[in-house]
């Protein structure tokens, strides 16, 4: 691992800046420095060591720029800083940090770059740097795209190292000893005589001296924390019911609110009649909001009851009312539309004779994290405070500033622990509705909680997608594969329409995980078609890869079957990337692929490279009297370095369960302009009784680090589809499979 100078060129680490009562340093810039977000709040005697470490009388607080929606981001980020800072995880506080441009996310830009993520060549890296600059300018502070670990892997350790060396320099100044005589350990500088100076006691001194940025990151052989099993910092609270979430926000004088917004998303409210409601117990006020109406009450349930009792007339939806019409739009787009992009075009597809032709479909899906959307907002004359669990605090700050006419600096977004997200908390409609209510309740904190039904009906779903494939085989090999895929654009709906960020060029999520797979098929073409906007859509765990992984691999399995080849062997033959090949070899070895199976059992395999992480899976099922039962899944994922093996295993298994559950059980369909599903009895994913046993292996065959929150999702559905095909002779062509097959 290089010195900071090398890292600086790659991640734009810079020096220090004097601030009131201290110094901030080690933060990142692109051309112009970004203001240190901690400057404002620092009291005398506190030193902000980079935007990531704050030391004051309360102890050491690690400011973690990525929110935690359940994936253990706080712990992983804390461990990376603590590794170099020489402090233990149980000695530190973790704070998700205020919204700030200084916390910009470089890794998320990588997914938008037109180079396969396995390509680390100079041009590809240069483009990623460029995209990083673009993201920087927009100041995105986004948790998503499995970027927490890759974005922080060097930055956070560097932050810890800079802080450590500066604290040592401060201790040298104070003690008159040479820095080389000092050691650091468990949150203190240790003098040669064994005397310990806690970091807190050095904060004021460290603020006065120049930061030490010429540091060397420790080689992996010296790591104490990274790569070893850890106890996550939130685990005691989450094992005792004492963890609090956004929904548990409570303040003096706070009122409770509920809303009902037109379930024909984006449609107007024509009229409402709340005459019955105002006299209901506990109801304080009825307030119209954008597209609907809200109720302020003294208790959540009373607000729910009241808002449901309002009679409302809704206008029609700004998209086709029936599901069939949505599918027709996709078919028409492929038939007659212009390509949005053809990111892969190898060999000669037009000359190739197609022997296999397919059409596959993937439905709309809700995110449905278990904690419904909620936000608490307090509007006063001088400032606005927002408390919520949210992955886009900067954008939320900007929208609330616009709505209230405040300066962004006077809008304070406080990020609270999230009860899941899966992409739902990349949206902030709930904050906007809560802000409208709070503006009508100036001086009173308003907590808005969505009913589950509201959460589902108002969700911006995963897009529907349709894929048409033509392919050919010869001499037992796959020789041609052409994929055309159509779906509405997530970028248009989420970034352009709702956040006002222009996203130039093709929508790369439409062809994500189709064009960039590491296969050398001689004739290989992928074309994306951007369908017109239908129901509003958003990023859903693994984004475009969630449907495209199914499309690509189900089709490849069909072609391999046609060729009469083995799906593991043929993939290994086609693969161009060694770490990818090793993940597939790993699951084959773990599962004993190729061995004999009982008559009613079958296995399927799939692979997907998404978010830079190759992931291979093999599933075994039993086709029994009660239907298909999911028995076992073997999964291997290449991430460069597994930061915490315990959390890694949990996240990977959870991703597999997520992929399988929605593949067999779940969809959102439209009728009369509204989602037909509204709660967990008709949209649930997987439950305990359907969950397979899962065997996980983390692979470390690369020198760069990628994330694992999303990559286990895409291979799950196509691996299962292949197993179903082998068990029944019928290949699933559309999700959810439960519509066409019985599951136990």
């Amino acid at each position: 691992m290089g010195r900071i100078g090398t890292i600086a060129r790659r991640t734009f680490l810079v020096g220090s800046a004097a601030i009131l009562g201290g110094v901030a340093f080690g933060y990142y810039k692109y051309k112009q420095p970004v203001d240190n977000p901690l400057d404002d709040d620092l009291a005398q005697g506190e030193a902000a060591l980079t935007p990531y470490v704050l030391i004051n009388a309360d102890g050491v607080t690690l400011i973690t720029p990525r929110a935690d929606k359940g994936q253990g981001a706080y712990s992983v980020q804390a461990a990376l800083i603590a590794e170099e800072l020489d402090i233990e995880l149980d000695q530190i506080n973790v704070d998700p940090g205020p919204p700030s441009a200084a916390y910009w996310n470089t890794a998320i830009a990588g997914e938008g770059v037109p180079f396969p993520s396995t390509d680390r060549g100079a041009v590809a890296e240069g483009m990623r740097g460029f995209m990083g600059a673009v993201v920087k300018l927009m100041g995105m502070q986004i948790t998503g795209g499995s970027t927490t670990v890759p974005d922080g892997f060097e930055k956070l350790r560097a932050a810890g190292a800079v802080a450590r060396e500066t604290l040592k320099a401060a201790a040298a100044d104070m003690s008159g000893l040479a820095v080389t005589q000092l050691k650091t350990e468990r949150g203190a500088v240790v003098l040669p005589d064994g005397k310990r100076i806690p970091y807190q006691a050095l904060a004021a001194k460290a603020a006065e001296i120049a930061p030490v940025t010429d540091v060397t990151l420790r080689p992996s052989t010296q790591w104490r924390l990274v790569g070893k099993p850890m106890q996550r910092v939130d685990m005691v609270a989450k094992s005792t019911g004492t963890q609090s979430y956004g929904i548990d926000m409570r303040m003096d004088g706070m009122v409770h609110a509920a809303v009902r917004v037109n379930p024909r998303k984006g449609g107007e409210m024509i009229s409402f009649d709340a005459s019955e409601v105002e006299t209901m117990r506990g109801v304080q006020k009825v307030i119209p909001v954008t597209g609907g109406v809200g109720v302020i009450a003294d208790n959540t349930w009373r607000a729910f009851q009241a808002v449901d009792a309002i009679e409302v007339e809704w206008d029609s939806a700004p998209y086709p009312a029936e599901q069939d019409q949505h599918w027709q739009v996709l078919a028409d787009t492929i038939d007659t539309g212009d390509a949005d992009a053809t990111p892969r075009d190898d060999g000669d597809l037009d000359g190739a004779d197609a022997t296999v032709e397919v059409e596959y479909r993937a439905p709309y899906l809700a995110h449905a994290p278990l904690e419904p959307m909620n936000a608490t907002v307090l509007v006063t004359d001088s400032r606005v405070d927002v408390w919520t669990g949210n992955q886009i605090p900067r954008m939320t700050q900007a929208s609330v500033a616009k709505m209230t006419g405040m300066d962004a600096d006077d809008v304070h977004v406080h990020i609270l622990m999230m009860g899941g997200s899966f992409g739902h908390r990349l949206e902030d409609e709930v904050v906007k509705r809560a802000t409208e209510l709070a503006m009508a309740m100036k001086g009173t904190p308003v907590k808005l909680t969505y009913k589950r039904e509201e959460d589902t009906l108002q969700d911006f779903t995963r897009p529907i997608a349709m894929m048409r494939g033509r392919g050919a085989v010869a001499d037992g090999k796959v020789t041609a594969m052409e994929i055309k895929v159509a779906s509405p654009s997530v970028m248009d709906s989420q970034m352009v329409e709702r956040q006002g960020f222009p996203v130039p060029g093709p929508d790369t999520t439409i062809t994500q995980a189709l064009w960039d797979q590491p296969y050398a098929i001689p004739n290989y073409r992928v074309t994306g078609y951007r369908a017109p906007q239908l129901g509003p859509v958003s990023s859903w765990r693994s984004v475009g890869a969630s449907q495209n992984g199914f499309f690509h691999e189900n089709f490849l399995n069909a072609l391999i079957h046609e060729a009469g080849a083995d799906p593991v062997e043929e993939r290994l033959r086609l693969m161009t990337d060694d770490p990818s090949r090793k993940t597939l070899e790993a699951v084959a070895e773990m599962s004993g692929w190729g061995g004999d199976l009982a008559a009613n059992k079958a296995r399927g395999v799939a692979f997907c490279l998404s978010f830079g992480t190759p992931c291979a899976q093999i599933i075994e099922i039993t086709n029994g009297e009660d239907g298909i039962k999911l028995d076992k899944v073997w999964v291997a994922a290449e991430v460069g370095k597994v930061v915490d093996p315990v959390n890694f295993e949990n996240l990977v298994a959870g991703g597999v369960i997520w992929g399988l559950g929605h593949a067999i059980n779940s969809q959102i369909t439209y009728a009369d302009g509204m989602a037909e599903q509204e709660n967990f009895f008709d949209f649930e994913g997987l439950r305990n009784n359907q969950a397979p046993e899962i065997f996980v292996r983390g692979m470390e065959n690369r020198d760069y680090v990628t994330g694992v929150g999303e990559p286990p999702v895409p291979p799950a559905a196509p691996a299962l589809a292949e197993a179903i095909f082998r068990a029944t002779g019928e290949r699933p062509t559309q999700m959810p499979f439960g519509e066409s097959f019985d599951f136990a």
Partner: protein
Amino acid sequence: MKLSVNGVMHDVDVEDDMPLLWVLRDELKLDGPKYGCGVAACGACTVHVDGVAVRSCQTLVGDIDGPVTTIEGLGNPSEMHAVQAAWLKHQVAQCGYCQGGQMMQAADLLANNTAPTDEDIDDAMSGNLCRCGTYPRIRAAVKTAAQSLQEG
């Protein structure tokens, strides 16, 4: 009306048809029981009434005639119930939002069945949804808790 929660008697002035969940959360400020669905479809709100696991979102406060125990009453960080200790040992939680309900359901199961099989666990626990997909660890933690309860 009178309501005994975690060994403390409370006087609450609410409608008879208010679900217990909202009495606990908004009146008594006990946030362990979570709101997930409101229709007994997720189990996040699970508490014990008279020692039996119920969905508090569908239990009307006026119908209750026994003591209520919430996850806060089962045990706490300095004195954990065997189920909580097992959940910590296996690091079951991801977002953790469902886990209070999962643990209350598991405690009920283990009070009636000291050595549950996988099938028993599936039967008892499948009403508790975990959107993060922690089921493999839930199964393992239930078995660990069963063992530590047996060993006393």
